[in-house]
């Protein structure tokens, strides 16, 4: 592990052969070809298929490194320390670790994010949408030599309501008219709106919206958006289809409510990756991911998942000191 904050960032010119730029952050080097992404660090190298890498990198950028660890696969990933980010290879893989092949470097989060934004833009070809599930008609293909861009897809802004979606001046509801048609798998979801009768003077406080309709119109997968806020308690519902592109390693307890359909979660030990359990969540099910695991979800049909977060920045330290629990509730 290198404790010093890395300051070396470099974007190399496009390859004559593939047309893609290559990237350097600290001593990590990233290149891609028609099918694969290569990651090289001083003590090793790693190869991933371009589709899985791009879906994971897209979430890394869109979520701003999110809470805790984002493992792209058993070898490579990032850990968010909120302002500072670890980038690692093999750190959470017992065999890499035992054989001294692991490597970790620290970066200023905003600087690394800037490099990753450029990478996502350059490595996303025209028509390919890394936010889409591969079965969607407009998902496109990540393969091949450099061929245009898809800036509209990769620069989507993650919705973060200040109080609740639909309130005056807050995040807008989604409609056909503002460019959000229902997804093909949610065509049977009712678009009826709640009855709201506000007395004069209370129009800004007497409010409701159709959350299920809102989610049925999401044009992204595995991208939790803040829809309602009680201080640091965030309801972050999302629409899921295919595979969560990362194994998410929790640095706090994280709750799920399955609003529709079904997701299977594979849960592993955060440090070793050893299996701990398998959870099937169906409509109405509630479960909490402890703070010492990593999890990855599989959604065979597009489903609605309510992700509930406590966004307090103090929680990782509170867990380390024992002030906050690793298991949310003991009974």
């Amino acid at each position: 592990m290198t404790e010093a904050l890395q300051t070396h960032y470099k974007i190399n010119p496009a390859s004559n052969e593939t047309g893609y730029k290559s990237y350097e952050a600290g001593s990590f080097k990233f290149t891609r070809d028609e099918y694969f992404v290569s990651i090289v660090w001083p003590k090793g190298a790693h190869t991933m298929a371009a589709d899985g890498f791009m879906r994971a990198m897209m979430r890394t950028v869109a979520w701003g490194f999110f809470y805790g660890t984002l493992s792209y696969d058993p070898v490579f990933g990032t850990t968010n320390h909120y302002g500072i980010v670890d980038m690692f290879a093999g750190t959470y893989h017992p065999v890499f670790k035992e054989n001294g092949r692991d490597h970790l470097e620290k970066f200023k989060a905003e600087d690394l994010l800037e490099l990753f934004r450029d990478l996502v833009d350059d490595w996303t070809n025209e028509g390919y949408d890394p936010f889409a599930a591969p079965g969607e008609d407009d998902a496109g293909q990540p393969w091949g030599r450099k061929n245009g861009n898809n800036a509209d897809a990769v620069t989507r802004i993650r919705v973060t309501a200040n109080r609740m979606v639909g309130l005056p001046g807050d995040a807008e509801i989604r409609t056909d008219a503002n460019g959000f048609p229902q997804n093909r798998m949610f065509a049977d979801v009712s678009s009826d709106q709640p009855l709201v009768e506000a007395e004069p003077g209370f129009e800004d406080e007497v409010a409701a919206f159709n959350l299920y309709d809102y989610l049925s119109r999401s044009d992204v997968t595995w991208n939790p958006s803040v829809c309602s806020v009680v201080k640091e308690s965030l309801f972050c519902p999302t629409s899921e289809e295919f595979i969560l592109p990362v194994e998410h390693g929790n640095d706090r307890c994280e709750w799920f409510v399955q609003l529709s359909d079904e997701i299977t979660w594979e849960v592993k030990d955060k440090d070793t990756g050893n299996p701990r359990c398998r959870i099937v969540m169906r409509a109405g099910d509630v479960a909490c991911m402890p703070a010492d695991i990593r999890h990855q979800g599989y959604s065979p049909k597009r489903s609605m998942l309510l992700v509930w977060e406590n966004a307090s920045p103090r929680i990782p330290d509170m867990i380390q000191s024992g002030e906050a629990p690793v298991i949310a509730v003991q009974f």
Partner: protein
Amino acid sequence: MSEYKTVFGGLNDFTPGGVDAIDDNPKNYVFSNVFDVASRSAPYERVAVGKNLEYVMEVLRAEGQSPWYACAHDEFALCMDGEVEIHLVKPEDADGLVDPDSEGAVVLDEAPDGRKMGRIVLRRGHQALLPGGAAYRFEAGAPSVILTQTIQGPATVERWAEICQSESRPAA
């Protein structure tokens, strides 16, 4: 090929999954089902199904008329089954009714004096703001289910051992 069917579940129509523990205690996942909880609750018990330090999610079986509640901070109500009417009032003496520094919903002994703010009718999937400083009451003609986003308060009921999965249960 058939059209896609979205499954939402309901008070009389739910099939929970479960935790299949490989090398873990299934209790660690605090697994429950909102419809199962509501099916075993008295009307308007505010049963916690999620807890993250001071914050909670509560399940309410909405049936008939609820007591009046007041809360110093915003809360939210998501209708997960049925139809629920919400009446909102701005109390004349909101701070006297509920300590402005307090957390969680408080049950009021009687309807508060104050201005009517309005009325909301939620059906499945609809979410409403229960604004901080307001008083509110739920009403449901038939058993319905509400999930709240709030902070643990005097009205919150905890009975985790009764509602949560304790043994490993491989889901089919």
